[in-house]
């Protein structure tokens, strides 16, 4: 018996394994709601109602999102670019929809979240430690640097943008906003008149992030 359960129990587990999956409609509804709450949370963080590191970190991420999406797509968001992440706040990004329950569920402390006592006796809410400053700061730095890239692009300084992107690559080789940096590079190369390189970078971008909402814009760069 593969599961180490006796026959009936084993069969029950086999029969019920897929029984709890959500329906397509439930998934869709969840997707929209999460996007709205992510956006709302960003708004809360930005308005500074809470001073904890957690929320500040969410704010940093949202700042990153806004910066990044401005670079990459104008409105399309960050999640769609990042394979391993939750849904795309894309559609909702410009208009945060605050709702009462947007109050952040209190997460447990930092640490590799793997360490999770399953006991319900966790009723005694765990101490609300602040997010590792390093993670939050790094994200803020990433977002700030990409904002500079965006500024350079807006003022037509493609070479400046490229230099800043090189510095981004050096400082954040595994950055959270990697996809945004890759998209920005395409526009920077165009702006600097390096069309061939821009096209090659655009092709790589589309291969790497095929489902990104920025893909079409990136491909249309230099045209």
């Amino acid at each position, binding site marked *: 018996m593969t599961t180490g*359960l006796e026959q009936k129990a084993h069969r029950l587990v086999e029969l019920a394994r897929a029984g709890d999956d959500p329906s397509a409609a439930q998934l869709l509804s969840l997707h929209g709601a999460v996007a709205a709450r992510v956006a709302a949370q960003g708004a809360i963080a930005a308005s500074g109602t809470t001073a904890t590191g957690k929320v500040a970190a*969410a704010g940093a991420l949202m700042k990153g999102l806004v910066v990044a999406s401005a670079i990459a797509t104008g409105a399309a968001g960050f999640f769609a670019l990042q394979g391993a992440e939750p849904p795309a706040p894309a559609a909702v990004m410009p208009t945060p929809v605050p709702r009462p329950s947007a109050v952040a569920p209190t997460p447990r402390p930092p640490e590799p979240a793997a360490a999770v006592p399953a006991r319900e006796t966790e009723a005694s809410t765990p101490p609300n430690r602040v997010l590792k400053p390093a993670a939050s700061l790094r994200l803020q730095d990433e977002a700030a640097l990409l904002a500079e890239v965006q500024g350079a692009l807006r003022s037509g300084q493609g070479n400046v943008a490229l230099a800043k992107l090189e510095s981004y690559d050096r400082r954040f080789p595994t950055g959270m906003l990697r996809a945004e940096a890759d998209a920005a590079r395409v526009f920077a190369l165009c702006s600097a008149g390096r069309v061939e390189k821009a096209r090659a970078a655009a092709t790589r971008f589309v291969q790497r992030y095929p489902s990104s909402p920025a893909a079409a814009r990136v491909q249309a760069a230099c045209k």
Partner: protein
Amino acid sequence: MYESCAKLVWRNLRRLGVPEAALEDAAQDVFLVVHRRLPEFEGRSSLRTWIFGIVLRVAARHRRKARGMLVRETAIPSELGQALSAPAHEGPFERTLHHQATALLHRVLERLDDERRALLIMVDLEQTSVAEAAEALDVNLNTAYSRLRAARRAFETELSSLLGETPK
């Protein structure tokens, strides 16, 4: 990727006893925590296991909130026990059977203590390795194995009792 995560989150919230009416809220909470804490994910466990850890905590919170909420207990059809001893086959009743089995699974899981429930879900339902489950529950590997054995025996006992059989 998002879709498989969403399914993982949803089905395990259900198994962990979050009532139907609170499922979407709970799933949203999980994703907000995931979203916020993703920068801390260090790849020490798989992403699925990491998310499962968050699901456990959010489920506990929602269960507490829902305490006192009227939860309808699904009746267990008398023929279900027999169907479980029959060999697997795809027939016209298979769909109903899946449905009934899922309801029964919830009834059994609900009778286990939290740690046993979590272990059984991770290892036997989600087919996570015992090593990963041990890491998620913060116990050492030997402990996880012996608790898993105990969880399986408890699962079988509760199943028998729900089916009206004398436990072996």
